[in-house]
């Protein structure tokens, strides 16, 4: 596997698009959290006199231990970028026909697609690492009562979420083969289509829409602001069920991806 990853590394190491997007992604993880932090502190500062605010907002979201939930929730909005990286990585092979050449030269089809799956895992791990570091930085600089790893499981939930986005991206890449179509469908699916289907299903079948592929992951990390109010208004599905569903979906994605690549004409 190490040998296969080395080959994958040779492919992406000098790929400018990949470098730029990956760089921007890392900057954006910090950036989006910084902006949210800025807006949040600005608002609370204005209303500092009001004693009601504290009751509405709950514990400060950028202080330990709430910061884990806050940062992972906010960063969830950026997960389409690693998805994009994965789609590019697979659809490039299709458009250069290098997936064929790799197999001709002596990779098995399984090896080829397993490396792409490994890439999904690695990118998810890297995303999680950056989220962890970002949360640590915000937690440490926001004052409060020192470092705390309570609620650190939100970081693990984020990893599951990153893994799911990456796998869906790889799935769309393998199914559509052309980067334009794959990226378009992936983006629409992530932003609109799934939410729409999920809401419609939720309306007709009480709560079932929460178990749609990416919803299950998103719901793992609840809305981190106005916690005291939100907690009363929205009933989040059970975490254990969500984790099981996420696992099942991941297995299904990987199974379809592997099966499709191993049996199709390339």
């Amino acid at each position, binding site marked *: 596997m190490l040998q296969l990853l080395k080959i994958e590394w040779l492919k992406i190491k000098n790929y400018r698009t990949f470098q730029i997007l990956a760089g921007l992604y890392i900057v954006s993880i910090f950036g989006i959290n910084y902006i949210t932090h800025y807006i949040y502190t600005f608002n609370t500062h204005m209303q500092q006199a009001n004693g009601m605010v504290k009751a509405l907002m709950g514990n400060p979201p950028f202080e330990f231990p709430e910061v884990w939930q806050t940062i992972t929730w906010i960063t969830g909005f950026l997960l389409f970028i690693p998805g994009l990286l994965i789609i590019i990585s697979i659809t490039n092979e299709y458009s250069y026909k290098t997936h064929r050449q790799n*197999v001709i030269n002596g990779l098995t089809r399984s090896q080829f697609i397993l490396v792409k799956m490994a890439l999904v895992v690695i990118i998810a791990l890297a995303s999680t690492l950056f989220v962890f570091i970002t949360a640590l930085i915000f937690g440490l600089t926001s004052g409060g009562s020192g470092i705390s790893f309570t609620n650190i499981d939100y970081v693990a939930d984020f990893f599951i979420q990153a893994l799911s986005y990456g796998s869906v991206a790889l799935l769309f890449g393998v199914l559509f083969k052309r980067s334009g179509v794959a990226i378009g469908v992936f983006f629409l699916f992530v932003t609109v289509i799934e939410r729409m289907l999920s809401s419609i299903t939720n309306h007709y079948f009480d709560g079932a829409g929460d178990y749609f592929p990416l919803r299950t992951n998103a719901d793992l990390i609840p809305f981190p602001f106005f916690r005291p109010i939100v907690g009363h208004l929205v009933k989040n599905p059970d975490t254990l069920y969500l984790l099981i569903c996420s696992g099942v979906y991941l297995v299904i994605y990987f199974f379809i991806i592997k099966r499709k690549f191993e049996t199709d004409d390339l």
Partner: protein
Amino acid sequence: MNILTLNSITKFYGQIHALNNVSLKVPEGSVFGILGPNGSGKTTMLGIVMDILRPTSGTFQLFEKEPSANSRKQIGTLLETPNFYPYLSAEKNLRITAEIKGKGFDEIDDVLQKVDLLKRKTSKFSAFSLGMKQRLAIAAALLGNPEVLVFDEPTNGLDPVGIAEIRELIKLLAIEGKTIIMASHILDEVEKVCTHVAILKNGNLITAGSVDEVLVNEDIIEVYATDINKLLEVIRSLNGYSNIKTTTNSIQLWYPNGIANLEDINRHCFNNGIVLNHLQLKKKSLESRFLELTNN
């Protein structure tokens, strides 16, 4: 040993019947040409052997064993188009090939030298001309000094000098004892370098065997005379022909390429009391043979 054995390979693309029950054997050390017009199934056949296409039915063996990724590592292949990462240099592309094949990087300069691309090794693949891309693909196939090479239209996109160079290279590889499987629609190319040939048409294997058997390249001399029976008798006493065919009013004499002498035949007949009313040399070209085989 047979390098490649196909057993009743059939391939459908939806309704299109790309290969129909093709069986053949490629012996070790041969230069095996696969000849056929565009769309006859040459690339499909090689694609199946290289595991990038799935046969609808049939099996094949490489090195008389069930095909595997490891057997592909021992074959240098250029299939259809040169496939490389356009944003990487020639050298970095070959590094990926070497990594996949499990070979070291030290041969990269050698193979680039062989195809005359050493000076451009740091140029990006996307900056290459079609001919250079083709040569890089041949360099990639040569990596690791494989005993078997598969070339699909190897001279595609090359200029006349490049074509001659690649043919020389193929001949050189053949002298080194390597087995070469080459698909082409250019008859001349096959005639010049191949020892064996298979002819495909619309997915059917029309014929396969050694070049001498399949593409008999002989001179045919056609003679008529009024007394056809006497003529036949006289003609039979001639030397050097390889075959005689008779039709109702003419006789065809087959000679190995280049030794037929019309004057001798004419003199021989006249001395034996036969006056010919028709004497013609017909060159049987590879092309007419190919057309004969593919247009039934």
